[in-house]
């Protein structure tokens, strides 16, 4: 070890030892400040986990696509996430959380506020209840918006135009998602006037995404070859079940930010309970889906097992903060059954390559309604939204509020999304041509293949096309051509290059 390095090491250790003394020498932080810092730290960790769910959606969708469309999935996720990031900060967050109007917020466009929640609370009322840095709240809410947007494109794989994303992504991240999340998360009419319970967004994130997906799918139509001349659905197998599995597991991991992070704080340790509830439901979702598909067709479909996990997670998203542990496996199991039956039923008429309509739509509806059944009195009181569910109260009141929320969210998002996609279809077009679809989006929209070796013959790639390697043993005595002719009749000894 060099002496200078040693000196540096000693200094560093001394500095570490001295650090607490320095901290004490400064103003002692108040308990309130520490709570804000603790909450902010947890919400940021959770938000970063949710951001990673983009990788989950990417791999899930790419795995369910054919190899000729694998690269397009990468471009899509990157583009959508980036557009949403700017649009949500500039406009979306203000509509969602910038005030307590019944329809939408009005303050905080291009948000630039103090990191002190009490100072920012005049613009963002939610910060009176949840003491976290405003930037953490914005980032956490943005990654939710990005998840919801990623769900939209699940039904549109392998045939939608790249340009169609961009337009819808802006409108979705700036207006559609924020307004709906204001109604249910941000103090809007569904939350305040009807007490609709949606802890982390079975409706806000998942049903809304799936509703946009349905609107797009109805205008887009099925992939070429999905339905035979007799009208019966045919399998178009995705190119990689391992990628699907990786995507599902990344989403599952991300969900530990999604639901537990929706506590918007760490101080009471509630987030650990929410994490456990989330995991129980996901596990039950896999089991429910595997049992159902095995009962129906005697095979354990790999994609369905993955859909089961997602459905369990989507199902528990709304109830995760409202139900006790015992309810979680029941909610997940039912979601797992729903997703398989849903995929099989929807596949007869609509071409939804990843099962987004079932895994996010039907399971999202189920999860939202499940609050109306399973919400426990203590957690309804803790969250201060709505009433206990049917199984505790014997009253259908909360179930009614949940159903109203589902219906309102679906109708509004479907109408607006259908209108937007309709305009896109009539102007720039929603779908690539049949020839382009056959060739694949990778080469048509992006000019390159996701897996070039599968499509470009090896002899036409790279160095292989610049002629055979020069052979030093032949080059020494002249050009290969003359060497070959002069030796054609001689003994073969020595001709084999060493």
């Amino acid at each position, binding site marked *: 070890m060099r002496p200078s390095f040693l000196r540096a090491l000693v200094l560093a250790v001394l500095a570490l030892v001295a650090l607490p003394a320095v901290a004490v020498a400064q103003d002692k932080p108040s308990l309130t400040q520490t709570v804000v810092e603790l909450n902010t730290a947890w919400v940021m960790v959770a938000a970063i986990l949710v951001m990673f769910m983009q990788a989950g959606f990417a791999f899930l969708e790419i795995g369910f696509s054919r190899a000729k469309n694998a690269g397009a999935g990468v471009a899509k996720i990157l583009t959508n996430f980036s557009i949403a990031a700017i649009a949500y900060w500039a406009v979306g967050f203000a509509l969602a959380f910038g005030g307590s109007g019944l329809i939408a917020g009005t303050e905080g466009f291009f948000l630039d506020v103090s990191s002190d929640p009490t100072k920012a609370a005049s613009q963002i009322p939610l910060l009176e209840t949840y003491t976290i840095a405003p930037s953490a709240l914005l980032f956490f809410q943005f990654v939710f918006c990005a998840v919801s947007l990623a769900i939209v494109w699940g039904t549109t794989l392998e045939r939608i135009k790249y340009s169609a994303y961009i337009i819808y992504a802006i409108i979705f991240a700036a207006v559609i998602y924020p307004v709906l999340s204001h109604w249910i998360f941000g103090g809007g009419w569904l939350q305040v006037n009807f007490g609709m319970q949606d802890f982390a967004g079975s409706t806000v994130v998942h049903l809304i995404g799936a509703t946009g997906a349905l609107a797009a799918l109805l205008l887009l139509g099925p992939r070429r070859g999905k339905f035979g001349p007799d009208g019966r659905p045919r399998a178009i197998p995705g190119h990689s079940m391992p990628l699907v599995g990786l995507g599902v597991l990344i989403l599952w991991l991300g969900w530990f930010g999604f639901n537990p992070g929706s506590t918007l704080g760490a101080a009471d340790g509630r987030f650990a309970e929410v994490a456990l509830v989330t995991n129980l439901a996901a596990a039950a979702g896999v089991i429910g889906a595997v049992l159902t598909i095995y009962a129906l067709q005697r095979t354990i*479909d790999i994609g369905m097992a993955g859909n089961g996990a997602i459905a369990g997670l989507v199902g528990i998203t709304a109830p995760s903060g409202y139900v006790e542990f015992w309810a979680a496996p029941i909610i997940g199991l039912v979601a797992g059954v729903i997703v398989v039956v849903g995929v099989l039923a929807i*596949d007869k008429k609509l071409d939804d390559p990843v099962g987004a309509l079932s895994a996010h739509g039907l399971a999202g509806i189920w999860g939202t309604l499940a609050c109306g059944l399973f919400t426990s009195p203590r957690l309804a009181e803790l969250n201060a939204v709505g009433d206990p569910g049917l199984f505790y109260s014997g009253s259908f009141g909360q179930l009614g509020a949940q159903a109203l929320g589902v219906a309102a969210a679906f109708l509004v998002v479907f109408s607006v999304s259908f209108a937007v996609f309709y305009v896109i279809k009539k102007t720039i077009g929603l779908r690539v041509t049949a020839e382009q679809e056959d060739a694949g989006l990778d080469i048509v929209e992006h000019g390159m293949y996701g897996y070039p070796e599968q499509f470009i013959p090896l002899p036409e790639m790279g160095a292989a096309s610049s002629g055979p390697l020069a052979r030093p043993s032949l080059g020494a005595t002249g050009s290969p051509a003359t060497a070959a002719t002069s030796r054609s009749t001689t003994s073969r000894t020595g*001709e084999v290059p060493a």
Partner: protein
Amino acid sequence: MKLIMAYIRPEAFEPIREDLLAAGFPSLSIDEVKGSGRQRGMTERYRGSQLTINLRPKLKLECVVESEQVSLVTETILRHARTGDVGDGKIFVLPVEQAIRVRTGESGQEVLQAHESEEVPA
């Protein structure tokens, strides 16, 4: 000279290759092909939909030998490729007019001969 073109089960290749090499026939080409015959297809079940795959993977083996050695090669192939079940494949024997070794330009039957072992690069 004859071209022996055999469509066989992919798993039969390795023992055939070993025996042909031992018998002095190192030169051959293979191609991974898909085809159909009397063997039935497979059914893929994917998310509730079905896909019947009638084209099964086979291995196409090509080998040019002197006419009198054809039976030696075909017998080697038959010995290892035959399981007795439908789907074992077929062998075709075609006439060959000319053979030229690219490296030297030499032509004729001697092109089909194996190298002496010490001539083969490691």
